[in-house]
């Protein structure tokens, strides 16, 4: 009986589960090397609720001693690009991210949403000096092992002024 329980447990451990991805508004991870500039506000044209930006900027200003800042910003599911406007103390920068939305049906999940490398020839348009985008799927194809990564990493951006 004990052996059966062990086999059952290990089968469960090895079988893993399906990754369905976030199944909601996707977010990108953005790291800005802002040096001594103080970020005052982030807005996004077309956004109906800016509270998520305000919240993160508030956290940013309260910990402004660190140089590199990480943000988690949502991207629009209604367009293949999203523009962010960064208002610093003495300058304003814009960053437009391009991507290709992919809505599909996945067995065991239902409808899922992913954002992939854009069909357009550019990844971003920006006034930042340096921008690098890493496009990764939000949904892992292979089964997830328990205690492993829970979902695809998605899009991440590094930018510096």
């Amino acid at each position: 009986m004990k052996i059966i329980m062990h086999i059952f447990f290990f089968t469960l451990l090895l079988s893993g589960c399906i990754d369905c991805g976030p199944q909601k508004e996707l977010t990108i991870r953005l790291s800005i090397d802002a040096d001594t500039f103080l970020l005052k506000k982030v807005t996004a044209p077309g956004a109906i609720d800016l509270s998520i930006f305000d919240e993160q900027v508030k956290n940013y200003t309260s910990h402004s001693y660190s140089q590199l800042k990480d943000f988690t910003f949502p991207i629009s599911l209604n367009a293949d690009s999203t523009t962010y406007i960064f208002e610093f103390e003495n300058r304003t920068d814009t960053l437009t991210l391009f991507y290709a939305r992919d809505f599909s049906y996945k067995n065991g999940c239902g409808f899922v949403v992913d954002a992939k490398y854009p069909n357009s020839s550019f990844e971003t348009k920006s006034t930042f000096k340096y921008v690098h985008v890493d496009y990764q799927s939000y949904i892992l194809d292979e089964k997830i092992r328990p205690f492993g990564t829970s979902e695809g990493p998605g899009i991440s951006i590094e930018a510096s002024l």
Partner: protein
Amino acid sequence: MSLVSLCGNAQEAIEDSKLVYIGLDLVKSLPSYVFPDKYLIRNTVIIEPYVIFPGKDPRKHWVLSGGFAQGTSKIDTTQISQSQKFQGVYIKMAFENQYKRIPLRFGYGPIISFSGFRGKYTFKGPTFGDYTGSFTDDQNFAFGAEAYLAYDLKLNKKLMLRFQIRTTMAVRMSGNISPDYFPGVGITKGLNSFLISPGFSTQLFYKVH
């Protein structure tokens, strides 16, 4: 006296078993109109005619049936796809046995169904607004088997009510969206390639000479 009447009934039963009955399902679509917000399907038309033919053996019959279903599944606001529209036609056949001691009939037989599904799905976008897309999964084919137990209640010389409990199983050969209701099979929410659904129904039969 009772022996005579019993023999009479048995004789009548055997006489009856040589006749053809035509019938129609009365119940399947009813709850979808009476409780459209609570039941698993809403405002659904299900037309399911039946014909019972006598077999060579007076205690065996065979039943031919078809059906058409068109409707909408229950709205589930917690889901990305909250509801589905479905439409389908199906054909069923059953071999039916009558028993000496039990007033029930047991039937089993194959079923095939051609169905299609349509609907919308919405990803909530608290920051940039919701995204709503639509889907069409038009060509679904499933085949399987149905087994049932039926109790026949004679209303008069011509009419008979049949109460039936059944289980239907089917394998879906095409289509990819998990159906909430698969015409011919029944409620199949959460199932994908292997469909199974139990049910209860009532049919009204008319004796044909």
